């Protein structure tokens, strides 16, 4: 059984209420931070913990916090990114549904460290019922003196609000999130200036993922050292993984980083193996934006070592034979799944979600979708496959925000690892409409 730092109390009846949460030791981190620690020492513990952003990029949280500009007389803002729209990702939802007070507690401790007087939780509008869960919990926190003026009789005052989006994946990108929070279209901003210098209403702003902010609670309670003792190398602590696709037990699992991928997929404690006794074909390990890996490369690295659930191990081999931990959206494909169809589906997603500001992204995602549609529906030509790679390269690195890269990587990696399947679609246009390519080895025998 792996240790649970965040979900430990998730199953306790009534844990969404203040009373039950408090009885389980809730808000101890706020007491400790505000009464026994300085803001600097909270920041130090977060640095020592080695916590890395759980939203996708994996940037060290402590370092990010230390970049926040602190000009005199200008308010600073803490924003919680609860947009959770990356296909395959549904973990922040669980945290907020079950443990709204954990997020609030984490945000109070974080805001104290950062010197923020006001914070907002920006949540995707579709999570409408969670808006209410959070607002009820926030009201309870105010009523019990954990939010508002002079918390616990200290000089620290802090206000927290929830504000919803309205359906736009791009608003998970932090500058688009800020624009949206200002009541505008979610068009990402050019950087610099970075939000840490000029973000919400031109004030220094820090954006963190729900899970990152929740992790601050065990870090304050037990110390950064204890957190960093869990995990492996620079992948410290636990991570929530939302697992879906052709597995026996889809759901959200809190794992200790460093768990072997094979164990995660096949052990009964986690995914419970592939459904219907089928074989594993491929995995997208960190949300739709990260490269897809075929079975042999997700279980072992190219060097033949066990692949682990960690930032480093999943990235081992770079984009030639590796992928990324990303948001922890773990999508599993069995032998019956069509890689071409799945790639087309994702490219339709990115085209739909492109904000349209930069032409490589706006036009490129449209092209990717069209060419993939053609290939999937039996009208493709051999050179379309290289055309996909060419378009991906032209998008990658040439856009305002990383959505362009996120659209390009899945396509490039699918072609890299499953070129034979794309070629089969071209060679066998009729057959490819009737059945799937299956596992490559089997197809060779066809």
């Amino acid at each position, binding site marked *: 059984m792996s240790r649970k730092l965040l979900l430990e109390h998730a199953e306790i009846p009534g844990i969404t209420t203040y009373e039950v949460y408090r009885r389980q030791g809730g808000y101890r981190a706020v007491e400790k931070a505000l009464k026994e620690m300085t803001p600097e020492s909270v920041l130090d513990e977060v640095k020592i913990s080695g916590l890395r952003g759980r939203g996708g990029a994996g940037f060290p949280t402590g370092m990010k916090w230390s970049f926040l500009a602190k000009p005199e007389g200008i308010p600073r803002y803490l924003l919680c990114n609860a947009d959770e729209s990356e*296909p*395959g990702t549904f973990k922040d939802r669980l945290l907020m549904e079950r443990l709204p007070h954990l997020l609030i507690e984490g945000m109070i401790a974080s805001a104290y460290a950062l010197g923020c007087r006001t914070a907002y939780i920006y949540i995707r509008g579709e999570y409408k019922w969670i808006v209410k869960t959070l607002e009820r919990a926030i009201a309870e926190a105010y009523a019990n003196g954990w939010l508002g003026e002079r918390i616990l009789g200290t000089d620290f005052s802090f206000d927290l609000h929830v504000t919803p989006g*309205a*359906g736009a994946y791009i608003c998970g990108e932090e500058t688009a999130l800020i624009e949206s929070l200002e009541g505008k279209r979610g068009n990402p901003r050019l950087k610099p200036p970075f939000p840490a210098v000029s973000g919400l209403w031109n004030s220094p702003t820090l954006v963190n993922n729900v899970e990152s902010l929740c992790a601050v609670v065990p870090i304050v309670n037990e110390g950064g050292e204890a957190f960093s003792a869990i995990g492996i190398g620079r992948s410290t602590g636990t991570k929530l993984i939302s697992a*879906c696709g052709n597995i026996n037990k889809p759901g959200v699992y809190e794992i200790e980083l460093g768990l072997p991928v094979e164990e995660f997929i096949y052990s009964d404690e986690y995914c419970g193996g592939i459904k219907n006794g089928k074989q594993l074909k491929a995995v997208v390990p960190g949300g739709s934006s990260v490269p897809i890996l075929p079975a042999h490369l997700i279980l072992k690295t190219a060097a033949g070592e066990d692949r682990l659930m960690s930032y480093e191990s999943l990235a081992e081999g770079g984009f030639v034979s590796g992928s990324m931990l990303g948001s922890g959206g773990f999508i599993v494909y069995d032998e019956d799944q069509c890689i071409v169809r799945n790639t087309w589906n*994702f490219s339709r997603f990115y085209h739909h979600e492109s904000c349209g500001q930069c032409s490589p992204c706006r036009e490129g995602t449209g092209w990717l979708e069209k060419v993939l549609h053609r290939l999937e529906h039996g009208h493709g030509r051999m050179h379309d496959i290289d055309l996909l790679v060419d378009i991906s390269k032209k998008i990658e690195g040439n856009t305002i925000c990383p959505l362009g890269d996120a659209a390009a990587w899945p396509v490039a990696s699918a072609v890299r690892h499953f070129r034979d399947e794309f070629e089969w679609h071209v060679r066998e246009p009729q057959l490819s409409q009737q059945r799937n390519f299956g596992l490559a080895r089997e197809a060779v025998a066809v």
Partner: protein
Amino acid sequence: MEAVSTKEKNQASFSPETMAEIQRLLPRFPEGRQKSALLRILHLVQEENDGWLSTAVMDRVAEILNIQPIEVYEVATFYTMYNLKPVGKYLLEVCHTGPCAIEGAERLLEYLKQKLAIGIGETTTDGLFTLKTVECMGACGYAPMMQVGEFYHEHLTEAKIDRFLEDCRAGKVALGTWKLG
């Protein structure tokens, strides 16, 4: 966006409850930054206006927030949760992104299309149902899924869809509200 007759223009007014809710939201943002409440206000008034935003409704929101109507239109046209045309009483939003597609979202969409005799984006003649596809809703492990009003319906099957549509017709399905009350 559709042209509006001058008759319709600026005639929208909101219920006292909605106005009270709006007043409750504004102080969450610093003085002069009330535009930040726009997205939430649009959700509220869309709910009151039978699930869609008419130009008159958007113009009234602009008035309340003291911003230009174009600032409201810009937002209303960007986000997929806002409907710029009338929709049925029950807006069926079916996710068709990768993980849901693996679990049969496309089959389910076909089933709904046939059962309701409408295409995607269309409304049944009795005004009860509108069918819409949406992108990943954060329910990938409980696929296939659709959202109706406030609620997620997960692990969908044809039998569950049948039952659900009957419940809608019998008026037994709650949609939830953006109002906190």
